[in-house]
C-alpha cells in the first residue's frame, strides 16, 4: 500500500476535523495538570563553531543546558568582561536564569561595539558590522527583536582569538559602507556614522556575584538550629549545632558512599576531628536502603566522628527542622562542607574536598 502524495495531503487536511480547538485546550491543560511532560526535560543547546563547516555540541558540558522549558534568550555581556553571558526566560519553575560566561578570556580577546547612525534613525537598527578577524570577515547585524520573542541589547561582541587588532567596517541603514580602521583587541567603542574613527567607551566592570552551591538553601551568616537526623541504627537524634560545638567551629560535611572524592577525604576529616580544633559532623546523603553500606564504608575508612543519615522526620512545632530545609538532597554537589561558627552560623562553604584545611 503506497499513499500518493495527493492522497496523503488531502488526508492531512481532513485531519483538521479532529483538531477541534476546545478539545485541544482541554486535553493539553489536563495533561499538564496531571504532571505529564510533552517534549519536556529538553536541555538547552550550545554548539561551538569548529570553523570547518561543522559544529561541536558541547551542551552537556556547558552548565547552561537547563532542562527547564526555555523560550526567550538575551545573549549579552552582563559584566563588561568582554564575553557574552546569557539570560534565559523559562516557562515555569526557575523562570529566570543568568549564566556567566567563564571561557571567553581563556580562548581569545574581543571587540565590543555600539553604533550611532546620523543619516538614518540614530539606533542604526539593521546595520551590518563586519570585523576582519583571525578566520576571515565575520558579519553581525544589530537587531531589535529576533530569535523567539527576544530583544538583544544594542551592542555587538566580536571574538578575535589571538589577533591583536582587527579592521572594522559598518554598512549603515541606507547602504553606505564606512571603514573604522583597525581596532585594538579589547576595545570597547562607539562607532558614529561619518566619524571614521571609533570613540572609546569606558570600561564598566561589574563582576557578577559568585553563587553558593546549587541545592544549598542557606546563605552565609544563616544559623542552623536543631535538625532531625538518623543514626546508622536508625535512631532519631535532634542535633543542636550550637550546643555540640563546645565553643569550636563545626565542619558539617555532606558525603555519600558512591562519591569517590567524598570517601577519599574521610581520613582527613577524621584527623581534623581528632585534633580537637573543630567538631566534624558527617551527613550521608545515600538513599536510606544504602545506610548500612555507607556506615560500613565510613568505619572501614577509619572515620569515627558522628555521622548521620537521611530519612528522619522533623518536628517543626518544637523547632526541629528537616535536613531538607537546609539542602536539596538531589542538587547539592558533594562533597560540600559547611563551616559553622560555634553558634551554628554558616561562615564558609567549601565546595569539593577540603584539601589543605
Amino acid at each position: 500500500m503506497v499513499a500518493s502524495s495527493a492522497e496523503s495531503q488531502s488526508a492531512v487536511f481532513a485531519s483538521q476535523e479532529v483538531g477541534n480547538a476546545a478539545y485541544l485546550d482541554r486535553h493539553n491543560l489536563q495533561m499538564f495538570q496531571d504532571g505529564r511532560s510533552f517534549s519536556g526535560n529538553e536541555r538547552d543547546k550550545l554548539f561551538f563553531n569548529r570553523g570547518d563547516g561543522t559544529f561541536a555540541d558541547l551542551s552537556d558540558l556547558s552548565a547552561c543546558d537547563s532542562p527547564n522549558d526555555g523560550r526567550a534568550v538575551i545573549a549579552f555581556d552582563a559584566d563588561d568582561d568582554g564575553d557574552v553571558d546569557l539570560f534565559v526566560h523559562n516557562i515555569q519553575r526557575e523562570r529566570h536564569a543568568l549564566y556567566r560566561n567563564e571561557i571567553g578570556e581563556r580562548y581569545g580577546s574581543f571587540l565590543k561595539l555600539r553604533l550611532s547612525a546620523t543619516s538614518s534613525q540614530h539606533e542604526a537598527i539593521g546595520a551590518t558590522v563586519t570585523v576582519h578577524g583571525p578566520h576571515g570577515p565575520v558579519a553581525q547585524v544589530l537587531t531589535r527583536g529576533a530569535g523567539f520573542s527576544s530583544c538583544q541589547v544594542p551592542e555587538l561582541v566580536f571574538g578575535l582569538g589571538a589577533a591583536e587588532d582587527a579592521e572594522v567596517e559598518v554598512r549603515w541603514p541606507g547602504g553606505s559602507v564606512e571603514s573604522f580602521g583597525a581596532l585594538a583587541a579589547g576595545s570597547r567603542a562607539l562607532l558614529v556614522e561619518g566619524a571614521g574613527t571609533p570613540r572609546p567607551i569606558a570600561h564598566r566592570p561589574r563582576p557578577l556575584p559568585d553563587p553558593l552551591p546549587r541545592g544549598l538553601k542557606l546563605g552565609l551568616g544563616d544559623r542552623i538550629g536543631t535538625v532531625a537526623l538518623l543514626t546508622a541504627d536508625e535512631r532519631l537524634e535532634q542535633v543542636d549545632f550550637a550546643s555540640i560545638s563546645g565553643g569550636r567551629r563545626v565542619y558539617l560535611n555532606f558525603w555519600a558512599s558512591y562519591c569517590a572524592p567524598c570517601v577519599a577525604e574521610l581520613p582527613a576529616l577524621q584527623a581534623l576531628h581528632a585534633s580537637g580544633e573543630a567538631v566534624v559532623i558527617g551527613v550521608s546523603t545515600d538513599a536510606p536502603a544504602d545506610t548500612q553500606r555507607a556506615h560500613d564504608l565510613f568505619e572501614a575508612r577509619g572515620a569515627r566522628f558522628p555521622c548521620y543519615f537521611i530519612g528522619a522526620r522533623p518536628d517543626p512545632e518544637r523547632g526541629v527542622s528537616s535536613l531538607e530545609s537546609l539542602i536539596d538532597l538531589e542538587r547539592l554537589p558533594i562533597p560540600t562542607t559547611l563551616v559553622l561558627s560555634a553558634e551554628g552560623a554558616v561562615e564558609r562553604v567549601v565546595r569539593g574536598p577540603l584539601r589543605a584545611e
Partner: protein
Amino acid sequence: MPSSSRVVTALSLLLVAGAAAWFLRPDDAPNPPDPRPAPPPAVEPVPADLVLPATIDLPDPDPRITDLETVEDKSELVADWLLDFSDKLRRRDFSAAARWFSPRFAGHSLAGLAVGGEGTLHADARKRTWDAAGAPIVDRDRFLAGIEELIGPWTRMESVLWKVKGAEFQAGGGERWGKIKLFLHMTGTRSDGGVSAIGGWAWLRVAREAGLWRIQRFQLTSLAETWHEGPLFTDVSAAAGVAHQGLRFGQPGNQSFAWNGAAGGDVDGDGLWDLFVPSDGRNFLYVAQDDGTYADQARERGVELPDAGTGAVFFDHDNDGDADLVVGHIGWCAGEEGVGGRALALYENDGTGHFEERSAALGLTEPVVAYSLTVFDYDGDGWLDVFACAYGRVAVEHNNSWIEANNGAPNALFRNLGGTGFEEVAERAGVRGDQWSYASAAADFDADGDVDLYVANDYGSNRLYRNEGDGTFRDVAPQVGVTDIGNGMGVSWGDLDADGRLDLYVANMSSTAGNRILGRLGDEIDPEMMALLRKLAAGNTIFEAESDGTFRALPSSAGGVNASWAWSVALCDFDLDGRLDVFNTNGFVTGDLPHDT
C-alpha cells in the same frame, strides 16, 4: 489501517508528539494501553547458579508487532519505565535501580573497558571513546557496580537519561518481550568545576517476568565520555538577584506557552544593560546595579502591568534619545475577550528610566495575536516601525493544515508617524500573511541599503520579505531557497562561516516520537511524502549565504541544528575565537513526572 490514515496518525504524532494521541483518540479509547508497570517491592538476589553467556546475542522479535499504534503504546510504556529507572540512577540509588533488572540479567559492563581513542572536540573539550566490543560480560550486581564506578568521581549528578530510540516487540501469545534501541546518557560535575558527560548506544532485551517488565540483556554498541576542565558557564541567577521561582506550568496563573519574551536595553542611561521580562501576574524590570546584581524595579518604573506579554523590544519610538518599550500580548489564554489578541503596549521612557504607557494615545489600539516583535525602520523615514508576528487564534480555531496552514491571524506592521502615533500598514506593505507566525528577524541580507525581514511560521513554510525600497516587501524565500517548511519557532541572522555574508539560522520543532515513527513507516509511504515528513522532523536549519544571493542549507550532519523542540536562538562568539557559535533554548512542557510523550 489504510495507509492514508496511517500517514495522518504519523504526521500528527510527528508534529505534536504524543499530545496528538490525546486529540486523535476518542474519549472511549478501544485499546487502552497496558497498565503502567510498577517495580517489584524487593530485589531478588542473583541466583548462585547463574552462568554468564560468552556473548550477548539479541535476535529481533519474529514475528514482531506491526500495528503502529500498538507498538507505539508499548514503546511509550517502556520509555516511561526506563525514565523512572534513569531517575533512580540520577539519585545514585543503586539498590532501587536493581529492581529494573532480571536476577538472571547478563550484559556488557560499562566499567573496565579499554580506551579506544582520545581527542579534542573543540578548544579544551576532550572526548574519549571506549572499546565497546571488548566490554566484560557481567551479572546485574556487577553491572550496577560498574556504573557506580564510572560516575564515582563526579561531585554531583546532573542528569541521567536512558532513552528509547527504537523498539520492536514479539507478536503472538508466547513470552512478551521486546528489543529496545537505547541511548544512554549521564552527566555530572567534576571536582574541578567542569562537566563530564558519558553517552552511548546499546540494545536491550526487556521482557515480562512475573507480571513485571525487566531488563534481561544489555548489549553495548558504543560508549564515550566528553569533558571540559573547569566550567564553561556558571548559573549566577540567585546571587545576581534574578532567580524568580514561578508557578508550575498548567496551574491557574500560568497557563500560557507565550508569556516568555525578554528584552535587553539600557533603561536609565547608566551604560549598563537592564532586562525587561514580561510574565504572568506581573512583569519584571531587572535594573543592573554597579555591584553586579539586579534590582527588580518594574513597579516603581511603571512597567509592572499589564501582564501576560509575549515579545518585547526596547527602542526609541520618539527619537528623544532614550529606550522606550513595546510589548505584545496574544491574549488568548486571558479569557474570551482576548481571543483575537490584544493591542501592543507602548511604554514611553521619561529619560530617567521611568515609563508611562501611552499605547492608546499613540494609536496602538488594533488587537494583534502577537508573539515576537521586530523593530526596524522599514521605510527609511528615520522613525522606527514595529512588526508583530501573529500566530493563530488557538482558543477558537485550530491550524487548518499541519504542512501549510493558512488560517493564522494577520501580522501587523505599525508604521511610526514621526513619534506621534502609529498606523497599521501590514496589508499595504505586503507582510500581513495568513501563516501562524512565531518569530521574525530583520537584516539587510542583500546589502542593498534597506532592511529585509524573515518570518518563521509554525505549520508551514517561512517568508523572506525582501524590502523593495518603496515601502513594500516581496517574499523571495522560494527564489533564494529559505522557505524551510516545518514548524518554525525562532530565527536569527549571523555570519556563521566567516565570509562576510549574513547567514540564517532557523529554529524548528522536532520530536523524538516523530522520528521514531518515521523509522517505522519505512517503505509504506511514497518517497516525496517521506522526504517532506523527514524535513518536518529534522529540526533546525542553517542557511549559508552564497555569493549569488541565494542560500544553501547545511546538511544536518554538519551539526549545530539538533536541538529538539527549539525556540529562541542566539548567534554569538561565546569562546571569542573569531567564529559565531549557536545557543538554542528548547523544550515544550516539563511535568513533575519523569515520563514524556
